[in-house]
């Protein structure tokens, strides 16, 4: 595929999936964020802090207004990564249907880049994170993300060189990747912040937000596969043989 259609397919699919994610989050994740911020504000008032509720309300409008734009930026940045991986791996993915291949790759990337890191460092609503530990927590999160992503990439490169059946290759890949993740999970420090709000709220937030991110990846894969099929036809060189 040439540069322009390739970029178009990649960025448009990310923007579509990101827009849907933002809209869905406004409906299903925002109530949990509102509730957490409400609890945080109540705790601050109880602790004797001076809280400007009008300023807080203004902040919330600003924060909510960025949900869809944030979703689009998030979608485009992850679809950029997805596009690169798909461009290099599409011939190695099983099957002949490009759409199915794209959905399969999106599922794998969702597992490696979201679900696995979330097992060690799950998402938290506002009122949980301590501003003083933000850079430390970001470092831990990125480290685990890189370990998961690099391991998946390394294992994929390794099994390509092994002369085995597909099922054995998959078994070897899963075993090595699983072993690396288990060791990393046990070796890496936990999130240092204590959770001082209701665990029911935190768990519900984690579950709902994870569901929307999984949905995002599946929409990204399906949209990407559909657009790839549509635009790639232009790049098929017709050869007539007699």
């Amino acid at each position, binding site marked *: 595929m040439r540069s322009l259609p390739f970029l178009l397919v990649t960025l448009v699919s990310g923007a579509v999936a990101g827009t849907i994610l933002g809209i869905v*989050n406004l409906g299903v994740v925002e109530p949990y964020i509102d509730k957490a911020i409400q609890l945080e504000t109540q705790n601050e008032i109880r602790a004797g802090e001076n809280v400007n509720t009008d300023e807080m309300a203004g902040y919330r409008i600003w924060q909510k207004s960025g949900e869809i734009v944030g979703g689009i930026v*998030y979608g485009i940045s992850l679809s950029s990564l997805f596009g690169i991986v798909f461009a290099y791996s599409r011939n190695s993915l099983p099957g002949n249907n490009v759409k199915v291949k794209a959905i399969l790759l999106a599922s794998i990337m969702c597992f490696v880049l979201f679900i696995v890191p979330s097992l060690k460092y799950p*998402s938290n609503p506002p009122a949980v994170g*301590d501003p003083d530990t933000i850079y430390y927590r970001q470092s831990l999160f990125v480290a685990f993300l890189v370990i998961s992503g690099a391991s998946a990439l390394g294992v994929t490169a390794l099994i390509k060189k092994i002369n085995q059946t597909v099922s054995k290759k998959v078994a070897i890949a899963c075993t090595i990747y699983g072993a690396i993740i288990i060791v990393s999970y046990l070796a890496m420090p936990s999130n240092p912040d204590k959770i001082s709000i209701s665990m029911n709220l935190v768990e519900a937030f984690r579950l709902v*937000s994870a569901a929307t991110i999984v949905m995002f990846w599946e929409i990204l894969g399906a949209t990407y596969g559909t657009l790839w099929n549509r635009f790639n036809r232009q790049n098929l060189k*017709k050869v007539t043989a007699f």
Partner: protein
Amino acid sequence: MRMSYTRQLLIERPDIPRVAIGILVAIMLFGLFSVGFDQGQLFSLVEGKEAFDSNWLHEFVHDMRHAAGFPCH
């Protein structure tokens, strides 16, 4: 009786545009930093130290940052 036939083959070009890959890497890094990690750094390039207090961009993508699982305050 002489038979003749025409066969059409569709051959996919295997090349991956490297310029496009480079553009996507740049977009990915900038986008992920903006949504997931910025604490005022991007706007401090034009706004100075004040950007770390106002955290304009951080607050704008605040809810998406939480929902996407990135660490936040």
